[in-house]
C-alpha cells in the first residue's frame, strides 16, 4: 500500500473535481425530483381520474426497477429511438426519473398523514379545494416530509456512483482512474473516497435526525 503516492496533491485535486461533479449531479437531480415528486404526489393524492391511475402504474414500475438499469437505458437505449443524451444529462435524467417516483411516494404518504378534519374545516370555512390543498394541507405535510426527503437525498448522493457505468466523471470514476495507475493506490484511495461520501452523508443524516427530533 502506498498512501503517500495515492494521496499526491494531483490525485487529491482530481478526486475533489470528481466529488464536485457528484455533488452537482445530486443537487440538480434532487431539486428536479422534488418538483416532479410533488406534482405526481399531489395528482395521486387528489385522485384525478385516469391520470392518477396512469401515474400509479408508472411510479410502481419505476420504483421496482434497479436504478442502474434506468441509467443504462437513458444512456445506451434512448439513442436507439433517436434521443441522444450526453453522459451528464443521461445520468441526471435517470436519477430524476427514479427519484421522482420515490419522492412522489413520500409526498403522497405525507399528504395522507394530514388529518381529514383539516380539509373539512378548511372547506367549510369557504376555501376551494385547491386553496385548501395549497394553504392548509401542503404546508403541514411538507414539514413532515423533510426527514424522509433528506434520507432520500442521501440515497441519491450514494446512487450517483452508479453513473460509473457510463463513465460520468464523478467521484467513483475518478477514484477508479487513479486506481488504474498503481495497484498499491487501491486501498488508500477507497478509504479516502469512503470518508468523502461518509462525511457529507453523515452530516445530512444528523440534520435529518435533528429535524425529526424537533417535530416531536
Amino acid at each position: 500500500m502506498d498512501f503517500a503516492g495515492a494521496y499526491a496533491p494531483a490525485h487529491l485535486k482530481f478526486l475533489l473535481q470528481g466529488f464536485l461533479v457528484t455533488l452537482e449531479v445530486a443537487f440538480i437531480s434532487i431539486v428536479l425530483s422534488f418538483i416532479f415528486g410533488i406534482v405526481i404526489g399531489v395528482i395521486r393524492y387528489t385522485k384525478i381520474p385516469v391520470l392518477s391511475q396512469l401515474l400509479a402504474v408508472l411510479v410502481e414500475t419505476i420504483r421496482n426497477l434497479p436504478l442502474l438499469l434506468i441509467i443504462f437505458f437513458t444512456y445506451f437505449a434512448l439513442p436507439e429511438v433517436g434521443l441522444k443524451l450526453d453522459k451528464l444529462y443521461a445520468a441526471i435524467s435517470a436519477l430524476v426519473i427514479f427519484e421522482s417516483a420515490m419522492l412522489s411516494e413520500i409526498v403522497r404518504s405525507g399528504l395522507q398523514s394530514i388529518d381529514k378534519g383539516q380539509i373539512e374545516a378548511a372547506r367549510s370555512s369557504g376555501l376551494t379545494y385547491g386553496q385548501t390543498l395549497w394553504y392548509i394541507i401542503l404546508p403541514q405535510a411538507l414539514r413532515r416530509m423533510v426527514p424522509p426527503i433528506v434520507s432520500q437525498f442521501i440515497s441519491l448522493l450514494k446512487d450517483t456512483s452508479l453513473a460509473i457505468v457510463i463513465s460520468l466523471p464523478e467521484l467513483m470514476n475518478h477514484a477508479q482512474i487513479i486506481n488504474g495507475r498503481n495497484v498499491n493506490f487501491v486501498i488508500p484511495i477507497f478509504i479516502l473516497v469512503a470518508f468523502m461520501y461518509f462525511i457529507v452523508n453523515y452530516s445530512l443524516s444528523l440534520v435529518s435526525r435533528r429535524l425529526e427530533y424537533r417535530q416531536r
Partner: protein
Amino acid sequence: MLRFSILVEHWDLYMQGFGHTIKASVLALIGSLALGTIIAIFRIAPIRPLNWIGTAYVEFIRNIPLVLIVFVFFMGLPAVGIRFDSFTAGTLGLMVYTAAFIAEAIRSGIQAVPKGQMEAARSSGLTYLQAMRYVILPQAVKIVIPPLGNQFINLVKNSSVLGVIAGLDLMYYGDLISSKTFVTFDVYIFVALFYLVLTIPLSLGVGYLERRLLKAR
C-alpha cells in the same frame, strides 16, 4: 414494436442472468440477515463497547455507496492478496451493505416493544437472554417482517451492481446480449421485465403484510 425474437433467441442467456440475480439476492439475504442480527444485538446489548462497534458499522456502511463496497471486495482485497470471483465479490458486497439496513430494521423492531415487557420479564425471574428469547423477540418479529421485506426488494434491485463488475447477473447478460445483437432498447426492456417479475410480487406481498399488521394493532 418490441422484437420478441431477441427474447426467444437469447432465452438461455436471460435465464442464466435471471438465475444469478436470484442466487445473489438470496445468498446476500441469508448472509445479511445473519450479520444484521449480530450487529443489531451489538447495538442493543447492555455492553458499551459492543454498542459502539454496532453503531459505527451501521452509520459507516449506510453512508457510503454500495458500488464502493463492491469495489472493495472486487479490487481492494485482491490488492492485499485476498481474491474472489466477480460473483462472490458482488454478493459479499451486497451482504455487507444490506446488513447495515437489516440491523437497523431489527433494532428498531426490538425497541418498538414496550420497555415494560422487558422489566416485567426480568422481575419475574428471567435472565436478560431468556427475556429476549421468549418475550421480546417473538413480539418484535411481527414488527420487523415488513421492513425486512422492503430490504429484500432493495436487495434484488441492488444486485444489479454485479453488472458493474461483470458478476454474471441480469445486467451483465443484458450487456452481453446487446453487444451480440447490436440492439439495446429491446434488450433492456426485457431485462427490466425480468426484474419486475421478481420485485412486483414482492412489493405486493410486503404491502399486504403491512396492511394486515396495521389492522392487527
